[in-house]
């Protein structure tokens, strides 16, 4: 039977290297996935994931059990990922956003849902698009990548997003909406689905 996280954590706190290693092995891919979603570069995500476990080791005694261990670990990972993006951005002075705004604003809503069918979990198209997700994320601005990963991978609520990102709840909702719109526009492009010219989006807000 698999030893639970807290039992491994307790042993690691007592100095048991093998228990700490077991936690690393258990979460390495998930932490890497979170980091990759935010920093978008595989090698940088690898470094961030390693730093996450080093930070975990430094703060083993700080975990109070107020959330799941994994939640606490992913919080470290996202914090380090966002820091890494800030450092990269300030050094490169760029924040790539290659989403075609026309695809976003021409009222293509509903096309993806129709193409993915009534049972999107089983769709072949869905599998293809899942394979394009990291590429699509890489085309979004850092702020949109971060909020999508925090919401959809880490599962944070609006309140938690507001706290984590240091922005009002209204900004969280607006930013999330625009991030989704851009992501869906990219997915339509990958799927070869042209936007419908007959419909117009009336919902574009000020936050992007």
């Amino acid at each position, binding site marked *: 039977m698999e030893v639970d996280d807290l039992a491994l954590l307790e042993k690691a706190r007592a100095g*048991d290297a093998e228990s700490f290693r077991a936690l690393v092995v258990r979460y390495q891919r998930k932490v890497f996935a979170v980091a990759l979603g935010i920093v978008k570069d595989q090698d940088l995500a690898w470094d961030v994931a390693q730093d996450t476990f080093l930070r975990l080791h430094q703060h083993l005694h700080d975990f109070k059990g107020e959330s799941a261990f994994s939640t606490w670990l992913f919080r470290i990972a996202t914090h380090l990922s966002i820091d890494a993006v800030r450092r990269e951005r300030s050094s490169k002075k760029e924040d790539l956003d290659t989403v075609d705004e026309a695809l976003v604003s021409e009222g293509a809503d509903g096309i993806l849902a129709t193409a993915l069918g009534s049972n999107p979990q089983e769709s072949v198209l869905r599998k293809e698009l899942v394979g394009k*997700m990291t590429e699509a994320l890489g085309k979004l601005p850092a702020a949109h990548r971060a909020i999508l990963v925090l919401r959809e991978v880490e599962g944070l609520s609006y309140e938690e997003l507001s706290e984590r990102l240091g922005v009002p709840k209204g900004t969280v909702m607006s930013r999330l*909406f625009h991030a989704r719109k851009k992501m869906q526009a990219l997915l339509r492009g990958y799927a070869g689905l042209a936007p419908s010219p007959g419909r117009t989006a009336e919902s574009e807000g000020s936050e992007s």
Partner: protein
Amino acid sequence: MKDCGVFAHLLGARAGELEPEEEARLAAHLGECEACRARLADDRSTEGMLAEGLAEAAARRDFTHFADEVMARIPARAWKEPEHRGGLRALKAFLGRHKVLAVASALAPALAAAALYLFIGRSGVAPEAEEPGVEVVSETLSPTVLDTSDGPIILVNDADGT
């Protein structure tokens, strides 16, 4: 529908994230706005794809050495030694506290070898040349054995050889 700009931002909310009043207004809007229903359908149809896509990307990466690299970056002093190595450590600590015993333990094999050497030397196994006087005396006083029909008769010589 001019209110779409307001309601579209509420579409991604999970149960309990909106105030009851907001939820009611959103439900009413969705009832009459086809565009927002289409947006909601897109959100739902793509739900979970991001997490799956990232998990797939992570699965493609080779993590064989990841944990080793992490462990190598943590100082060894951070860890308690495993039990079998801990026993050796305890022995070293004991000997450190009892230095006479430690020296004796270290010299024990050499002392044992020396004792064995001396024992063998004194037991007569050593070469003849080392104790020639003993052999001469032995020859002078050696008994003569006569083998008779009644059995062996042993004649002991006197000190002068007769």
